[in-house]
Every structure is written in structure tokens, then in C-alpha cells.
């Protein structure tokens, strides 16, 4: 089912990209992690972030959430620069964003219900009936309403990721970040997570960045769209005049630098030896 509430409106003008990263660099002690990274993600677009372990993907996601401050460059979310903001100001911007961490990062001591309701309580929502209806709504969206009273320790890896998605989308974010959401999952569960990412993108217009090591996930998101009628993925959408619409872009990080940024076709047809390693 589609969420009934529309994404929280941001202060920015609609023609601005959802995410704009400009010449960002960061290093830890003497180790350079990211250098001169620049890219944009349009509204409703998906950016697939590829790179070997240690190439700076997770650090980049943390920068985009304001969890880390870059040494140089600007990060604009809906037109608002995150870099000069204080922790309190960042909290307000983060309400427009959601993140699914690699292992879910659910709070161990809280039930599924309390995990998902966490953000509403932080935003001082007091009406328990409203909280419960919102929690049930997002849990239905990720098809886990039955697990509402379970503790995180009772959930499988895939269920934990889905609860994490539910927790992230309860405040109707405009932007979603997924940090290796299918890592370590079996193909069937991984597919279910991909369906969920496409569902959010195609039914809610959510912009997203997906960090992944699995190229098949990237191609699923690029080649298929979610059909509310069929409640599943169908072959990519087209419009009458310009042909196929692909809202997915690929970005490859290598040693902290942008090595490739382009469409699926450009990525697949690239003759570069390093890029070919991802495809073989």
C-alpha cells in the first residue's frame, strides 16, 4: 500500500536538486578519506554509490546526514548548506532525511513499535492513538505489521532492515540514504528490500542514495519501477515522446575520489579496466 501522507515540504525551491555536494573533502588524522567529491541528486532520483571497501562510501553518507563535518566543500540538502549548521539546526534538517544503516541499527532495548515510533516521540508527538496508527501504517508498508511487539533480537536480518526502513520513513522524508541495505541477505530477502526502495521512490517521489556492493541491486533499481497495481516491480517506465525514463545514476568512488558518475548505459558501456571489474 502507498503511504497516505505526503513528504514533509522543505524550504527550498522545487527546481533545486535534492542533494548537491560540491568539492567535499575529509581526512581522519593523516588519512585522506574523500577528496574533491562533487555530484548532484535530482528530486525523485536514485544515486547508486559503488566502490570497494574503504573507498569512503559510508563516510560520504554520514557527511550528507551531517553526522560528520567535511574539512572542505559544501553539502546542500534541499538548497540548505549543512556545513555551518549547529547540532540543533541539523536536527531540523534531518527530519527531511531518513537512513537505513548496514545492520539496521535498531535500538536493542526497544520493541519494534518503540523503534518505529522513536522519531515521533522525539518530535514531541503526544497523541498515542496517532502514534500507533502511524507506526502500523509504515509497518504495513514494509509488510511487517505482525512483528510490531517483537524485540530486535527476535528479528531476522531482512526483517531488521525492513523495520529500519519503517523507522526512517515514518516522518515522510524527502531523501533516503541506504547503507548497503542488502549486504549479507539471501537473494529473496535482498529483492524484497530492493522492491521497498523502488516503492518509496516511485510512490512517494523520494530521492535516494543507495550504497551497495551488489551490482544486481543497482540494475534492479535502474531497470524496474514499482507498480502499485501489481504490488511489485515491472519493466522500466517510458513516456510517449522521449522513450525510457531512468531516474538512476551511478557514482563510483575510488580512493576517496569520484572515479565515475553517469547513467546506467554509460556505466555498462564504459571500457575502463577498473569499472569493468564491477561488471564482470
Amino acid at each position: 500500500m502507498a503511504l497516505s501522507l505526503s513528504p514533509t515540504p522543505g524550504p527550498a525551491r522545487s527546481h533545486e536538486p535534492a542533494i548537491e555536494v560540491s568539492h567535499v573533502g575529509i581526512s581522519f588524522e593523516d588519512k585522506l578519506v574523500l577528496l574533491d567529491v562533487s555530484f548532484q541528486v535530482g528530486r525523485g532520483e536514485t544515486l547508486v554509490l559503488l566502490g570497494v571497501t574503504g573507498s569512503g562510501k559510508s563516510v560520504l553518507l554520514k557527511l550528507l546526514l551531517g553526522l560528520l563535518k567535511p574539512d572542505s566543500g559544501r553539502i546542500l540538502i534541499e538548497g540548505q548548506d549543512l556545513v555551518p549548521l549547529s547540532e540543533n539546526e541539523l536536527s531540523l534538517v534531518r527530519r527531511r532525511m531518513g537512513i537505513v544503516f548496514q545492520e539496521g541499527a535498531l535500538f536493542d532495548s526497544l520493541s519494534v513499535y518503540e523503534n518505529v515510533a522513536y522519531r515521533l516521540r522525539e518530535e514531541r508527538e503526544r497523541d498515542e492513538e496517532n502514534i500507533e496508527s502511524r507506526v502500523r501504517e509504515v509497518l504495513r508498508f514494509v509488510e511487517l505489521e505482525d512483528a510490531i511487539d517483537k524485540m530486535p533480537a527476535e528479528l531476522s536480518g531482512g526483517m531488521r532492515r525492513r523495520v529500519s526502513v519503517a523507522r526512517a520513513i515514518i516522518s515522510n522524508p524527502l531523501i533516503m540514504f541506504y547503507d548497503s541495505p542488502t549486504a549479507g541477505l539471501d537473494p529473496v530477502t535482498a529483492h524484497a528490500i530492493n522492491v521497498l526502495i523502488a516503492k518509496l521512490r516511485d510512490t512517494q517521489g523520494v530521492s535516494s542514495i543507495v550504497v551497495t556492493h551488489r551490482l544486481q541491486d543497482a540494475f534492479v533499481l535502474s531497470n524496474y519501477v514499482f507498480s502499485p497495481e501489481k504490488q511489485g516491480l515491472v519493466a522500466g517506465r517510458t513516456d510517449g515522446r522521449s522513450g525510457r525514463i531512468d531516474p538512476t545514476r551511478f557514482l563510483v568512488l575510488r580512493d576517496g575520489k569520484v572515479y565515475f558518475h553517469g547513467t546506467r548505459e554509460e556505466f555498462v558501456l564504459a571500457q575502463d579496466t577498473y569499472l569493468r571489474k564491477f561488471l564482470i
Partner: protein
Amino acid sequence: MLAVLFENFLKRKVLAVQEFTHLLAGSFERAFSPPHYVIDTLVQMDIIGFGSLPIVLLTGFFTGAVLALQTYRTLSTFGEVGLLGEVVALSIVRELGPVLTALMVAGRNSSGIASEIGSMLVSEQVDAMRALGTDPLRKLVLPRLFATLLTLPLLTILSDFFGMMGGYLVSSSTVRLSGEEYWVRAYQALTIQDVTQGMLKPFFFGVTIAAVGCYFGLHTTGGTAGVGRSTTQSVVAASVAILVLDFFITKFLIAIRFF
């Protein structure tokens, strides 16, 4: 080469002091503005305060008992066993009660705080918390600071009482000292300065225990092995800090002629 290593070691220590101070200052600054996590503070008071009660009472009781046993041997040489109540009361209320209670609470809770927050950090729960709009200093550090600050003085009072009870039981069973003699001597020996001194220290120790645990928890690196390291380091650092602080507080109170 050796000079560079020493320089790096010193830099790391100075940085640690800076980060610890930053954590403490940031937490106290947040104490005066909303949101406040009252429920979390009450839960922590239950875990830290009520949870530490058995070990604190046992420690207090047996400290008083063994103190009476040891002191009796010395006092009997001078034929002054009647002073037993006075010696036990002064030692327990001024020094042993606050310090041993703090050491027990540090052993149990600094490690608990460091391992809980450390585990949350390595499993990205702290990042998730921040991403969901929560300030970890408010949600994780302040409730533990307040809980320890409020419960340690209460635990110290109970520990002092059980210590004197332990001393009394040994006095009455071994020395055959009457209860009246023991308690009247103990009561008359204690001045308001002794009690104030003994009750002042737990406030400093309480902040130290919670802040050290939180600091090591929030600076955990290296996965689950790192959590183990943080746990050990927090107990060692908190225990040493309590003993050092105790010396300086006592020295300060003597310097200002408090007693």
C-alpha cells in the same frame, strides 16, 4: 624516534583531557535547556542506584566490621576499647564510606555505562539516534550523570550506616561493648564538618563515575574488542580518579580550615 613517540603519547593524552572536558561542559550546558529525558533518568537511577544497593551495603557492613576488629587490637593495648565507636564512625563517615561506595559503584556502573554506550556506538545506534534528531549527550550522557549524582550520596548514607552497624556487631560480640557506649561515643565524635565532608565527596565522585563511563563508551573504536577495552579502561580510570579526587578534596578542605 623515541621523542616522536613520546610527543604523540602526550598529544593523545592532552586531546583526551580536552574531549573529556568538552563532554562534561556540553552535558552541563544542555542540563539547562529542554528537552529533558526524565524517564531515562529515572530508569538509570533504578539501574545505578537501586541496582548497586546490595554490593554497597555488603561492602559498608564488612568494612565497618573489619575496621572494628583491627582497631580493637590497637586500642586494647592502651586500654581504650571504649573509643571503638568513635574510631569506626569517624573513619567510615569521613573517608571509607564515601570512597569505598564510590569505588563499588564505579566498578559496577562505569563499566556498565561504557559497555552499553560502546556497544551502541559500534552497532551504529548512536549514529541512528543522531540521524533521528536526538542529541546523544542529552539522551545518553545527562540521564546517567544525573542518576549517579543523585543516587551516590544516598548510597553513601546507607553504606555509612551499615558500616557503623558492622562495627557495632563486632564491638558487642567480640569486645562485649554495650550498645549505648558504642553509639553514644560514635554520635558524640561526629561533628557537622565530618558529615558535610563525607556527604560532599559523593557529588564529585558521582559525576566522575558517570562521565568517565560515558567518555570511554562514546570513544570506543575497534568493534566488540574495543567495547571490552573501553569497559576495562573506564573502571581503572574512574577508580584512580576517585582516589586522586579524594586526596585533593580533603587537602582543599584542610587548607580552608573546614575542620
